[in-house]
């Protein structure tokens, strides 16, 4: 099962070759009360220890696929289920040091049934999370 909070403990990790990490991943559950097609997500802003990474540059991985923001915005077939996790992939050469980091995610989810001016709805959560391996 998933952890209750948006940002999961497990899955907060560096990616890329050991010694030459390309960035870090933040595992999250869907920031919504139901599943949606991926085009209903408009990306994720991430801030780690005060360093900001914009939703226009972060990628998203689910199952065995990775989507850029442009690809995700047009992905109307693949879906994200309520019980599945996905991960935000943040490019940061060298990755993050092992230890505890303050991490904030602002998920931009689209609701067609919200008024037009607020149809991209921000959902923000922050927590401390731990990178285990360099």
């Amino acid at each position, binding site marked *: *099962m*998933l*952890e*209750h909070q948006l940002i999961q403990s497990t899955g907060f990790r560096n990616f890329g070759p050991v010694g030459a990490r390309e960035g870090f991943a933040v595992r999250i*559950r869907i920031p919504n*009360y*139901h*599943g*949606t*097609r991926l*085009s*209903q997500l*408009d990306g994720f802003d991430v801030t780690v220890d005060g360093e900001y990474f914009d939703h226009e540059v972060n990628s998203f991985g689910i199952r065995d696929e990775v989507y850029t923001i442009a690809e995700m*915005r*047009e992905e*109307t077939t693949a*879906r994200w*289920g*309520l*019980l599945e996790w996905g991960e935000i992939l943040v490019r940061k050469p060298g990755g993050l040091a092992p230890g505890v980091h303050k991490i904030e995610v602002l998920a931009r989810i*689209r609701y*067609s*049934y*919200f*008024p*037009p001016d607020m*149809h991209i709805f921000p959902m923000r959560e922050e927590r401390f999370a731990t990178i285990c391996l360099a």
Partner: protein
Amino acid sequence: MGSFKYGVSTYSYVNDYGSIMTLDDAFDHIADTGATGIEILGEGQVEGYPNPSSAWLDRWFGLLDRYKLEPTNMCSWVDMRLTLSRNLTIEEGAAELEQDLRLAHQLGFKFLRPKFGVMSHDLIPEANWEGYVERNLDLAHKLGIVICPEIHAPTPIRHQVVDGYIQFIERTGTKNFGLMIDTGIFQDRPLIHWGSHQITDEMRAHMDFLNGIRVNPEELLDIAQYVVFVQAKFHDIDEHLEDQNIPWKPVISALKRAGYSGYLSSEYEGLRAPWRAIDQVRRQQVLLRKLEREYDQGMFA
């Protein structure tokens, strides 16, 4: 005089589901309240939506049988703003609705609540909704399903949204389209929490509906013939069975006098925290049954 039927929506458990509650647990909690119906979110509880595996279907029917619950309503969404650059066409929107009708039927549901895209702050649906629905009326009839958009705060009963739905029913003569009432429209005292947060003065200033739109329950009598399902929205019931936001006595009275004998499907939407909804739903089930009994015994009118 008919009796209400009692159900529970899995939406109530949104902060439990998937982290401290499985589908099997949800069935157990719902059945133990004495409810006979289960309402679900299609793209929520149905794993592999929109094409669940045969293993999942076996599990679904096994749970219905084991817990003796009847599928009531399945919630769905018609995502008007398909991408940032384009909206659904009428044909695509109709296909979305068709897909959900077929899934709902496969799972044994009798009602389907589609959530249409909206164009304004008072939730006026996109014009294409009529096209989506009209193209599916024959199918809904064949499958024995009633399509029922919900009347939800901040939209009151006396509003062009409701008038539009009623005009559609009158024009087509259909029995497969009706109104779902979300009892949040009767809320007459302010909410304390919104989501997982305490409501601030600033939030109240921007979202007046948090204070309740206070629809008079008597207005149910004007539209009763079109009402097919009730989502019994609530937020907080204390240990004395006093609901802090929804005035149930006049609501139950109006539903009774309107001759309503369909489902009251518990929909908890209070403080978003795990382990809270399970007992809140139990309290509401007891409260609603008690009020129905008291009404039937003439203890209030």
